[in-house]
């Protein structure tokens, strides 16, 4: 058991909220060589510590917030990974977000923050280098995310703190609530808001002034980091994101790719996207570009509305997923209304992907007569009716009234409760709402929606090898846009060339792929223990049954062949059998022998 030479400090901060104590947990270099960090390290904790069927809202359930080994160095590595067992889906979950939190955790001398326990009264805590302080959060309880962040700054008398907090949605136990970092950044798909709320934890703030990430061979590392940066600067895709952010995909996916989502996935054709997308935003809304740590792409765009009902509204809007889910998905034509909906989700700490999915589903259910205004406190949502959607978001965040109680359950449970054939348009994978890419228009999205660990996630890769690359990106906390994968220009070699001089490892590119497969497979074993198999790796009914009625991909449907081809390809690549269960041989090859017993028990239990 060796302490890491570089990249990592070899210690994770363990917070126990029940006793309000903090301790250091040593992590040996061998574990980092296997699981890398962040998402991988979280998966390692989960498979090691949790038995099958663990209640994710138990007192000793954990949330792991982790930066990767590359964070806090000259490499562009600004992402933070949040890992927990998701009460919404019952599966292992990881959510990533940008900003400066990851680097700050590293500069405070930690490889991650592991939170367990449950406080009796609302608390938050601050981490300043080695010092942890627990503080009363009763005045913060009920506040929106930005107010909470401001209160933390005031309390710590330091404007350079980095915070991660929940909003009212998390406190009220909305299962698709999330964590918000520094006002505008959402770890939306983490769904950890409800876990924080259950632990009575409003959030925490980090400030690191004391430590620098140790580097084994600085000269080599800096050269390699520079190669990675230059590669991504010269990439045309990154150039597009520099100017228009991810919102530029709204127009592209409507007019070229045919994968924009419209009206709860009824079609992919919405010419009015020109009133919502990047061009419109650049013309009338965006005022500045915002970066994560050291990133040259600055894909976040902030803007302000200068007139109208929402005069003065400052929002990070739209980016592709938020503009898709809360814009075209709801049949919107009004930019201001869309921006306001997005901002409301940020303020309440709601995952806007799930929120948009719920609102879209509700509107279609009303349209088809399965839901009546009397079920929704008299509200009658119509496509494009931003005011009603705003009222519904208010109700969801506070679980208020009949509508709030119904909608805050999420689409899967709503559909089950309503019945009346709503399952034909309940677009969920593994119990969660889908992101803004129609798999009929962009068929390789099947990989991220179905094979990925989270279920219905938008950012887990669009091919077998991509799943692996993204697992590595999330574990190294590289952004998919500035690293390897379909959306980034780096290669496996560029990443390994950075890792070796940083950590003092002796990796080949094979080790990179092996680690990616190991992390994915460990996560899969966790999910198999919860009863997941090939039958769950399926898109919702709509995509196999309904042809696209219009747009560039008019007439296309996701066929069974499309499905089988991609599923088999992914299983084969990752060393899983035809039922989607990792084989004993591959577990041994990945060094996951300790999971064989668990896996066999699960196979017997679920007859796999």
């Amino acid at each position: 058991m060796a302490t890491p030479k570089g990249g990592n400090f070899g210690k994770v901060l363990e917070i126990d909220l029940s006793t309000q104590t903090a301790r250091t947990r040593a992590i040996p270099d061998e574990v980092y060589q296997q699981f890398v960090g962040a998402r991988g390290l979280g998966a390692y904790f989960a498979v090691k510590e949790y038995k099958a069927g663990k209640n994710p809202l138990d007192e000793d359930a954990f949330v792991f917030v982790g930066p990767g080994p590359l964070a806090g160095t000259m490499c562009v590595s600004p992402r933070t990974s949040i890992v927990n067992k998701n009460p919404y889906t019952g599966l292992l979950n990881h959510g990533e977000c940008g900003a400066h939190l990851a680097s700050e955790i590293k500069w405070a001398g930690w490889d991650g923050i592991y939170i367990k326990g449950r406080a009796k009264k609302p608390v938050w805590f601050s981490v300043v280098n080695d010092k942890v302080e627990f503080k009363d959060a009763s005045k913060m309880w009920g506040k929106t995310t930005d107010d909470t962040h401001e209160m933390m700054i005031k309390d710590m008398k330091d404007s350079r703190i980095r915070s991660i907090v929940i909003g009212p949605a998390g406190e009220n136990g909305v299962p698709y609530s999330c964590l918000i970092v520094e006002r505008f950044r959402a770890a939306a798909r983490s769904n950890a808001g409800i876990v924080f709320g259950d632990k009575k934890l409003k959030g925490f703030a980090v400030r690191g002034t004391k430590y620098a990430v140790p580097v084994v061979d600085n000269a080599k590392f800096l050269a390699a980091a520079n190669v990675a940066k230059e590669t991504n600067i010269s990439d045309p895709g990154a150039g597009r994101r520099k100017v228009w952010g991810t919102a530029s995909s709204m127009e592209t996916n409507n007019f070229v790719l045919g994968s924009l989502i419209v009206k709860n996935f009824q079609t992919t054709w919405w010419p009015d996207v020109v009133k919502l997308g990047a061009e419109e935003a650049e013309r009338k809304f965006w005022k500045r570009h915002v970066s994560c740590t050291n990133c040259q792409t600055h894909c976040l765009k902030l803007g302000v509305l200068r007139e109208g009902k929402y005069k003065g509204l400052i929002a990070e809007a739209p980016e592709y997923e938020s503009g898709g889910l809360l814009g075209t998905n709801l049949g919107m034509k009004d930019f201001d209304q869309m921006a306001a909906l997005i901002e409301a989700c940020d303020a309440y700490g709601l995952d806007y992907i799930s929120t948009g999915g719920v609102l879209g589903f509700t509107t279609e259910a009303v349209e088809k007569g399965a839901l009546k205004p009397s079920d929704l406190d008299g509200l009658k949502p119509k496509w494009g009716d931003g005011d009603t959607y705003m009222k519904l978001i208010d109700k969801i965040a506070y679980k208020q009234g009949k509508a709030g109680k119904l909608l805050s359950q999420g689409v899967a449970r709503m559909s089950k409760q309503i019945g009346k054939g709503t399952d034909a348009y309940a677009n969920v994978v593994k119990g969660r709402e889908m992101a803004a890419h129609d798999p009929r228009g962009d068929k390789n999205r099947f990989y991220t929606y179905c094979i990925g660990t989270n279920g219905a996630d938008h950012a887990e890769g669009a091919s077998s090898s991509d799943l692996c690359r993204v697992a590595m990106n999330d574990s190294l906390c590289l952004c998919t846009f500035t690293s390897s994968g379909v959306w980034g220009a780096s290669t496996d070699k560029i990443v390994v060339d950075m890792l070796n001089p940083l950590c003092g490892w002796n990796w080949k590119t094979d080790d990179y792929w092996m680690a990616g497969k190991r992390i994915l497979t460990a996560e899969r074993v966790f999910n198999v223990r919860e009863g997941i198999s090939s039958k769950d790796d399926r898109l919702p009914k709509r995509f196999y049954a309904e042809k696209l009625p219009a747009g560039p991909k008019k007439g296309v449907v996701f066929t069974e062949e499309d499905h089988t081809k991609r599923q088999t390809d992914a299983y084969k690549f990752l060393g899983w059998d035809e039922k989607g269960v990792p084989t004993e041989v591959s577990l041994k090859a990945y060094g996951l022998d300790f999971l064989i017993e668990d896996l066999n028990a699960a196979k017997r239990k679920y007859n796999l």
Partner: protein
Amino acid sequence: MEEKKLPDVLKKDTTRRDFLKGTATAAGGALAISAIGGMSPKKAEAQYSVQTAPGTKPFAQKFLYTARHNCTGCRSCELACSLFHTGNVRPDMARIWIEKYKDIVDVPVICWQCDDAPCIAACPTTPKAITRDAKSNGIILNEKVCLGAKCMKCAEACPAKYVRGNPDTGQPLICDLCGGDPQCVKACHAQSGNPQGPCLMSRPVGIGMNMSFRNVTPEEAGKDLAHLLFYPNVEGKRVVPAKTRKGR
């Protein structure tokens, strides 16, 4: 109504210094607005360079300059600075820093290499612990002479509230221009500029530019930027959801 929303800096009594300050802010605002409308980085840069009178030579010495509204808050300048001066990436050791204002704007806080250097004038030791390097125009700290955290007269004197204490030794962190080749400028340009052009620049600059811009504290600069970019919501308040605004 709108009068109230003006930054405080514009409403102060007009002593000579405050007058300079006010005009600088307004001029900066006007420049920035004109630069935003899709101007090419080259053209924007040209606009900032100060023209010297015909027949006179521009100064050979270097100054740092920041077009604050171009900052994306990536902090690559901080990282590069700390790497150059300490061999490690540790932004709190950097001689340049990015201040966040209301979470909506980022303010690069730099040393303007003032011609009259109030920090050097305020330094109480003999010989002076901080001096100006004649060749590079950077401010050099003599760590053996400096009294450190118990003094910090230089920080008090700095009109830009730029000087910070070193978290390890307590001595001031002041910009030495990396001996004439500022790493922060390189790092900023290596980000390949944002669509409006890079934020940090270093070039021979004439008298006046750095003198007037320096008299703005990070907070005042943040207010300026918020006013420039996010009018009418200059305080950066959250507009939705209305429910929480009613004090729920």
